[in-house]
């Protein structure tokens, strides 16, 4: 870490003015969901922060998370963050391949022993090591080897955080999440399918600027972004309170932009920042486009029933089971009545 320039130095080298830096700090505060009053502290921290080394591992995944990140990482302000980190290994993005790439990973690990950050997207198959390998190394082995010297691990996306789609029932590969395997390192989960790019960069920025991981909830998700439900921050919430609901995707309620609860919206049980951070450079988020929230940032979201099944729908067994219960009831009733009658008969005889 000794020779790495500070972020302030990097920005200066790029000819960024102090005004530009202030602007950068203001947007960083926004990004970290910190109050604007924190801007001076952020400025100070960023100026002196040094580039951390980052190793990005991709396992059973669809590259959607990387897509999400790189889409937003076009030269934007938060894109600068990535200029400020040293992405030493990312097998989708890196030019190197094969042994050369693995050598780069080992080099980064050795050089930054104890100080580098491991980002993981994708789940790890435990059913058979051969289900997913990189350079002949199983995902499990690579993960364990890489995190051994890491300062912290960030699980990017629902697959890495909770097992995600590979881990969904019936889970043919025996997929598990990073936190299922890594027990002795600080872990932050940034779930979502994909996660909001801003949230990913915010976690890195936080680590970069303050040298620490953000405060997390019980699922190790950064509280600043996962502290409230979609429902709580949804602009359609007033319609929920007024009892105005869309009953189908093409009814008047849907056209009027009413609440999508009855169409299966998982907003009330989903913790994420979509309603405020929004997607596609702040354009909108699913509900704003008229589609209910799928709840993608929640553990086991794939197995929580139909996407269009309302949250409060009970999960009843088949009619046959209910009929079985009814039949059992009849049987018990008959037995009870017979027992009662036989006692009556007995007592009548005894007088």
């Amino acid at each position, binding site marked *: 870490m000794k020779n790495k320039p500070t972020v302030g130095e990097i920005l200066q080298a790029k000819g960024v003015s102090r005004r530009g830096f202030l602007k950068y700090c203001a947007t960083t505060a926004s990004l970290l969901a910190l109050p604007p009053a924190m801007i001076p502290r952020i400025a100070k921290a960023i100026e002196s922060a040094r580039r951390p080394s980052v190793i990005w591992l991709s396992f059973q995944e669809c590259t959607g998370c990387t897509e999400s990140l790189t889409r937003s990482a076009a030269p934007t302000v938060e894109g600068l963050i990535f200029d400020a980190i040293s992405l030493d290994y990312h097998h989708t993005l890196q030019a190197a391949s094969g042994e050369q790439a693995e050598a780069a990973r080992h080099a980064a690990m050795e050089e930054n022993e104890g100080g580098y950050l491991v980002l993981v997207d994708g789940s790890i198959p435990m059913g058979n090591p051969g289900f997913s390998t990189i350079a002949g190394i199983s995902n499990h082995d690579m993960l364990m080897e890489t995190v051994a010297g890491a300062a912290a691990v960030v699980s990017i996306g629902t697959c890495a955080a909770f097992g995600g789609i590979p881990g969904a029932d019936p889970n043919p590969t025996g997929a598990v999440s990073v936190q299922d395997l890594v027990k002795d390192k600080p872990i932050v989960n940034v779930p979502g399918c994909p996660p909001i790019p801003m949230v990913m960069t915010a976690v890195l920025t936080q680590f970069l600027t303050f040298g620490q991981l953000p405060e997390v909830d019980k699922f190790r998700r950064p509280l600043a972004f996962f502290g409230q439900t979609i429902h709580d921050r949804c602009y359609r919430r007033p319609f929920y309170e007024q009892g105005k609901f869309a009953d189908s995707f093409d009814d008047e309620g849907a056209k009027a932009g009413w609440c999508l609860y009855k169409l299966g919206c998982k907003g009330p049980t989903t913790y994420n920042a979509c309603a405020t951070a929004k997607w596609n450079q702040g354009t909108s988020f699913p509900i704003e486009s008229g589609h209910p929230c799928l709840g993608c940032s929640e553990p086991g979201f794939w197995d929580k029933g139909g996407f269009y099944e309302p949250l409060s729908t009970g999960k009843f067994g088949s009619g046959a089971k209910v009929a079985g219960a009814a039949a059992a009831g009849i049987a*018990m009733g008959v037995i*009870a009545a017979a*027992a*009662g009658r036989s*006692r009556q008969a007995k*007592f*009548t005889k005894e007088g």
Partner: protein
Amino acid sequence: MTTVDGRHELDREAERLAYKPPEVRHDKQGDMDSEDRINKAMHNFVKNFNTQTASYLDGCLHCGMCADACHFHVRTDDPRYTPIWKIELFKRTYKRQVSPFAFFYRLLGLKRHVTIEDLEEWQHLLYDSCTVCGRCSLVCPMGIDVAGLISMARHGMFKAGLIPHELHEVAKRAAETGSPLGITPDKFEDRVEWMADEHEVEIPMDVEQADVLAVMSSIEIQKYPESIAATAKILNAAGESWTFRTDGFEATNFGMLSGNPDWQKDATMKLIDAAVKIGAKMIVLPECGHAYMALRWQGANMYGKPLPFKVLHISEYMADALDKGKIKVRKVDKSVTYHDPCQVSRRGGATQAARDVIGHLGVDFREMEYGGDYNWCCGGGGGVVTIKRADSLRHRVFKLKMDQVEKTEADQLLSSCANCRQSFDDSQQHFSWDYTMGSLMEMVAENLEEDNS
């Protein structure tokens, strides 16, 4: 433990049907041990559970509103007089023995076993402090007929030999002699002849074939013999083919009141047999409330099939006869209020009949506040009037009735139940009250227009 009937003499001076106060109370009959009594009570509670009672006992919400309908609770504020509490032991036995979840109640011991102390305490609650008036049955938000349950609970108490001394003696005498006051057929004949002479009215007796069998209550025969004459006058005036029978004259049913279904059946069958024997098309019941319940609504069930004749309370008979013009009455220039006998009106469904009769009499009729179906009971029904130790409680309760009557400021108080009448007479004496209870039937008989006879 055994009680000997003979030692207890009728108190003929009392204002009501009674024995002289027993020197030593025997509120337990027979010489069963406690265990036997408990078993008897339980077994005979259990016999009564059927779909109807089960739904009632399972349905109670413990809302306590029946307490607000019960005169005993209203006047004393004693929570034990809450009607549903009076059948607590009955209810508990149901839950333990026959209810759909009886198995669990027994397995987990959820309902305490009934003890002998419980039964002794409940004797007071089931007999002294309940007239089976059924007011509670009308307040119940679940529609539970609490009064009906009390009658059934008494079955267990009787078989366990846990009846108040006097009530048991009265019932026993009724079973043995055919009359709670020991009125034999001969004595009945005497009284009838006396009345026939006194009133110069023809009273058919033991006619072989008649359309109408008229019956009497011992209370009337003994205390209000004018009723005999009045009945005869009315039936004669209507031109009925009718008769009294020495083999079936007693309308009261102390088997029912005390809780002995066998005695109840015996008493009822006497009337039915007599009516069947003479080919009667109708039994006219006297001014007696519980007789109406016993024969009109329970008679056929004792008989085991529909009765081959109609059963009418005298008020129903009079209303019908007046409506059809079979008898006519003169207008009476009086203000009158009417006390509804619970078993005839509220529980019997003949509330309107008395009012029709009163309408024909053309009096200034003053309905009591909440009269008719919601009437306060006289306090002496259900056998309570016989129980001496219940006197003070009964008098206390009677205050409600006095208030109700006084508010009408009517000249004349009438009813159509000899048992109510004797309760009134007794309480009147106790309170030195102005109102004397009169008989609706007698008023009709006194005011018959002769041209029709």
